């Protein structure tokens, strides 16, 4: 065991730190759930790409740096410490990107990865349906092969598609075998959202902004070249690129460590009022410890993966841990803010309230999206502990 950064790591940290100091926006961008904010974030992605910081773990020929997971964690630490913008294309770069690298044809990689890295093509996900939420294998939207075998005709409805309102492309799962049941007969298809027959209907989220959308498909014609992986193998494609490696990229610890730090600062600035309730101090300390535990565990996993290790069923623990930590930290912040906690950021007397309320609302989504925490607990019980399914 060796728990010190190498001199190479330190140099890498300095490099990204100084690049961000010069290039990161001084003022926060508008939220990417508005049209203007979305464009600002797209431009930021282009800037990251120019600096070769867009997706550092990708190979150099794809605009990356071939960085390993420890470098990735360092990058994220500096990124969050600099309060750099959220990644508008995270569905693309963190979820679809690695999947494309594993399952895509050379042509698909060439066609999609660069556009993804530059932010020119922002991706959304088309998995959930009105009757296929936690039960994703209940997908009913279908893709039928045309007689000449050159196209799929897609019909159906997807929902809860984050950032679909302004996204350019969608990766979805569709039933290609009408006789099939559950996770058999599903196919993974990539499609541009401006095709004829596609209707995107925005759904306002808790904050009133259209952060996600429903997507309706009415005889949408897509070339078969847009299929990722084999026909009927969609479930495997969606699941196989190790869940946790994605989780590790998507929810690196830096975000939660920075929230914990801001919480400590908020507590310190309001000691007199906050200490009237000893539970607040306890919750602040717990936030620090849990963020630390998440960091330590993630680094340990990253080291194991670097050495060729595999992720097991314990990966489902990750989602529960960070999402419930995020809720707890924001709840504590609201307790400290007291009567001002309910004020929206633009209210005239909201000085000092910061973004805690927005963060609190957003934290409510963590235990729900990407497989609810109830589903994660089932997975832990059945696959990690071996408890009986039936």
């Amino acid at each position, binding site marked *: 065991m060796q728990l010190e950064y190498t001199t190479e790591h330190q140099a890498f940290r300095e490099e990204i730190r100084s690049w961000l100091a010069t290039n990161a926006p001084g003022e926060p961008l508008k939220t990417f759930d508005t049209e203007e904010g979305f464009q600002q974030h797209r431009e930021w992605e282009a800037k990251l790409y120019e600096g070769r910081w867009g997706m550092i773990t990708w190979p150099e020929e794809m605009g990356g740096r071939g960085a390993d997971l420890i470098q990735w964690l360092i990058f994220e630490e500096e990124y969050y410490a600099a309060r750099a913008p959220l990644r508008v294309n995270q569905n693309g770069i963190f979820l679809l990107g690695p999947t494309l690298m594993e399952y895509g044809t050379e042509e698909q990689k060439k066609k999609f990865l660069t556009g993804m890295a530059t932010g020119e093509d922002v991706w959304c996900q088309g998995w959930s349906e009105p009757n296929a939420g936690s039960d994703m294998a209940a997908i009913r939207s279908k893709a039928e092969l045309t007689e000449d075998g050159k196209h799929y005709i897609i019909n159906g409805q997807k929902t809860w598609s984050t950032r679909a309102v302004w996204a350019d492309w969608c990766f979805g799962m569709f039933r290609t075998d009408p006789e099939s049941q559950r996770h058999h007969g599903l196919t993974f298809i990539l499609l541009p959202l401006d095709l004829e027959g596609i209707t995107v209907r925005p759904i306002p989220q808790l904050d009133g902004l259209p952060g996600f959308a429903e997507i309706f498909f009415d005889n949408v014609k897509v070339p078969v070249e847009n299929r990722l992986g084999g026909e009927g193998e969609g479930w495997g494609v969606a699941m196989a690129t190790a869940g946790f490696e994605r989780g590790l990229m998507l929810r690196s610890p830096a975000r939660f460590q920075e929230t914990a730090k801001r919480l400590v600062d908020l507590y310190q600035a309001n000691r007199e009022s906050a200490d009237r309730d000893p539970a607040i101090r306890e919750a602040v*300390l717990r936030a620090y410890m849990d963020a630390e535990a998440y960091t330590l565990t993630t680094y340990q996993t990253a080291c194991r993966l670097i050495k060729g290790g595999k992720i097991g069923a314990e990966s489902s*623990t990750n989602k529960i841990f960070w999402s419930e930590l995020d809720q707890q930290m924001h709840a504590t912040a609201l307790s400290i803010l007291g009567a001002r906690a309910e004020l929206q950021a633009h209210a005239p007397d909201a000085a000092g309230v910061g973004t805690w309320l927005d963060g609190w609302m957003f934290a409510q989504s963590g235990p729900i999206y990407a497989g609810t925490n109830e589903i994660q607990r089932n997975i832990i019980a059945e696959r990690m502990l071996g408890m009986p399914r039936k």
Partner: protein
Amino acid sequence: MWEPALQAKLREQGSLLRNDREKDMDFTFTEDQLLFQESVRDFLVNEIAPEKIRELWESDSGRSTALWSQLAELGLTGITVPEAFGGLGMQALDFVLLAQECGYVALPAPLVHTAMVSVPLLVSSGSEPLQENWLPKIAAGDAIVMVGLEQNVFVEDAHIADLLILEKAGALYAVDPSQATLRANESIDLSRKLFAVEFDAANAEKIAEGDQAAGLIAAALNGGALGVAAESLGLAQRMVDISVQYTSERKQFGVAIGTFQAVKHHMANIAYKLEYAKAPAARAAYAIDHQQSKVDMAVSHVKLAACEVANLAAKNCIQVHGAMGYTWEVDLHIYMKRAWAYANTWGDAAFHKQRVADFVLADSAKLGAGNTF
């Protein structure tokens, strides 16, 4: 058991631990460390069945000299004793996985105390006579040295100790147990042997005072706290294993109760918290071995996290056992009661929370992303 060659290899690694800064960052245990853990687990699980523990509850001392000799033969009593004194010369990081296995079987012997507290204290005491007299005997299994800190109020296993090292008014004394008065205090965990000890400091050998004593006491407390934290991780795992098996067999409403989501979630809640307490245990061991400045926070963090998950395990596991869990007959309580006992020993929760607060709320605290290592 493991080969002498493996022992030698581990010994070598132990001595390498201190200065490998040029190596890549690596948060994993070595294959040999994991192999050692596996060998010790196999031995302990075989040797310390629940029946054995119940048998010892009925005995006068509650301890088995035969078991201690076996542990010595395997090199375990001298695992942290320097090679010059006949031990394996290993460190906290080598022992932390083994401590988990000691917890897994609720080991009724003071091995963790010996390896994590007594031996490191003797080694850093600077007293050659003490080291020469006691370290070889500890490694050979011929002597037991127990440490009594005021933080703990009671002294573990004082009745079988050949030497007591006791804290009094900021100083440490080496005390011959025959010169002390021991008053047994029964613990809820019948495997834990606790004593109120009185001795006459004027007639005892003072081995440290002032800053030196404070340093030794602080280190002893950290070693003991990490030891029981690591054991608590093993206890939690054992309770989960027992309960997964029970709920997979026990049927109600015509099905195994382990199929019910409410029961599954009780187990999953332990499992995910346990998963996130393991890396902090490794980090705390590393902090001890490398004398890092954040060692107090690191130890207190894992003490709190590990005891919390072990006590959650106790709570959820008795619940899924139903009335069976409330009986003397079912083995669950062997592990549950140890978890209860450990929650407030080697520093209670208030003590450890305060140490985390001292770190987190200090003006100079470096918090946030990039400051963990």
